């Protein structure tokens, strides 16, 4: 496994907002965050209300909640793609206004450029930061090797399997050595086996770089297996219901194995009892059944 210091020695990664770990750059503080949207009919819709949450540098935080509870909205405020209606987000001690530096995004639909080769897809991060093409290429090749895709650099995304595309997306998200990694149900569309493999690979890569992670998922097992902290959100309008600290030891090892440990099952049971009410309520809302 390549370490952060090795990566820096290679000189390929921007050091001004380098990865999490020691410094405070990756600390995310969300205070009283509220986001309202204007619907096309001219009404206001409150997606999230009064959300407060702190993610320590290098912490892996999973957000779990029923469909449409504003999990993605929360991420959008942290990245700076959208602006809060009330409250604030600070990253590394600075209030987010405009795009936050040193953030990478990973979506459920792999946001790869279908018209770029695998290499050029990974390359885009450093290129947008102004890294010279040759240096960026070297770095991208190195990352492709790390995610096990050496030899595939000239393929186009449509020629790859779902798992391979995810690995490309992961390399593209991590190549800039972000201090914050925002993941919006990144493995939601994968089959169970591929999902388990990708979770292991993500944990390995994350342990090498230690960015702060905000990880949205519907899958409670996934949240417990990967995260240090699991946040439960209420159904719409979303707010934070409960926060659970996951004290399973790191490195976690195989996520398939950890699922059978006693402590895992205990935590999972606790979190599920908290989540269950919200899921039922959200289902009744969307299904039109009186609550």
């Amino acid at each position, binding site marked *: 496994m390549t370490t952060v210091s090795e990566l820096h020695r290679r000189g390929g990664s921007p050091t001004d907002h380098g990865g999490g770990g020691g410094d405070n750059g990756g600390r995310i503080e969300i205070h009283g965050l509220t986001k309202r949207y204007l619907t096309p009919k001219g009404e206001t819709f409150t997606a999230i209300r009064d959300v407060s949450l702190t993610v320590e540098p290098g912490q892996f935080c999973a957000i779990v909640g029923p469909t449409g509870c504003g999990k993605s909205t929360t991420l*959008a405020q942290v*990245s*700076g*793609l959208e602006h809060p209606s009330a409250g604030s987000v600070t990253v590394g001690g600075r209030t987010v206004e405009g*795009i*936050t*530096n040193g*953030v*990478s*995004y990973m*979506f459920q*639909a792999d*946001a790869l*450029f*279908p*018209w*770029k*080769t695998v290499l050029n897809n990974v390359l*885009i*991060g450093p290129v*947008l*930061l102004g890294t010279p093409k040759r240096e960026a290429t070297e770095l991208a090749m190195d990352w492709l090797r790390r995610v096990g895709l050496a030899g595939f650099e000239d393929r*186009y995304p*449509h*020629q790859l399997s779902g798992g391979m595309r995810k690995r490309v997306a992961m390399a593209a998200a991590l190549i*800039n050595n972000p201090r914050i990694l*925002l993941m919006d149900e990144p493995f939601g569309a994968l089959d169970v086996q591929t999902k388990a493999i990708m979770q292991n690979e993500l944990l390995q890569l994350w342990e090498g770089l230690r960015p702060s992670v905000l990880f949205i998922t519907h899958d409670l097992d996934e949240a417990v297996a990967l995260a240090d902290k699991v946040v439960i959100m209420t159904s719409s309008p979303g707010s934070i219901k409960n926060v659970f600290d996951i004290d399973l030891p790191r490195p976690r090892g195989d996520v398939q194995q950890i699922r059978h440990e006693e402590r895992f099952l205990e935590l999972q049971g606790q979190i599920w009892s908290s989540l269950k009410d919200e899921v039922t309520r959200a289902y009744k809302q969307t299904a039109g059944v009186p609550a």
Partner: protein
Amino acid sequence: MTSITHKAPLVHEEEAQLKADAHRAMTLRKTWIWVGRALLAVVVIGGWQWFTAVGLVDKFFFGQPTEVWNSLVRLFTEGTAFGTIWENLWITVQEALGGFVVGTLAGVILGILLGSNRYLSDVVGPYIRIVNSIPRIVLGSIFIVAFGLGMGPKVLLAAVLVFFVVFFNAFQGVREVDQNLISNVRVLGASPLQVAMHVTIPSAMTWIIASLHTAFGFAIIGALVAEVLGAQHGVGLIITQAQGTFDPNTVFACMVIIAVVTLGAEYLISLLEHSLLKWRPPSRSEAQAI
């Protein structure tokens, strides 16, 4: 285990046999397609020839394939009253190409601009729909009155016809861009220009290139119609002249010539499409095969 190795050569043989059968079926299918095509041509053109020959259809009004061929030969050997066919064809092609380039550029630029700016598209949108709904061919009359009988008004009319086809496709192409991709590069620090270069334009390219096939046909129509309305040279002028002398055969001959030019251009556009869109998964739609 031993039984499997024993059977292996047999399986291999069967596979070769299957392959050969599949290949033969494919060849047979292709042959029949070509036979069908040839038959269709013979029936249509032969039928036309026969009906006019026995007098069921008056060849004075509807022409006759053999006479069309003679007209074609005459056009190329004797030329026309306005110079050789090559001169006239070249002028028409120049007008069409000019209109194609101008219309495409304007359509792409405006389409991308309006597609990526919601406010602008809300303001300009209704006007574009209004202009699009007027019969644009009639604009040719105005252009000729305003700009005379030269090449200018022809290029302009061709450009106007091309513009709307390309514009709507470019606009739609920009609107269909995957928002995740845009968010992704914006988070990575892309400027608006970089977003356009890396995401919007390449993504809209599929739509734009698809529109170019239709657009070239419109460019030729624009140039020809403008020539018919008033010109000193060009294939359109030959057509009006032939119409004036009750010579349907020459009109058909001109149609054949223009069809050949359009097919050639179509082929070039397909080549461009292949090189620009080589990243696409093969066989997106059956319609493209036609």
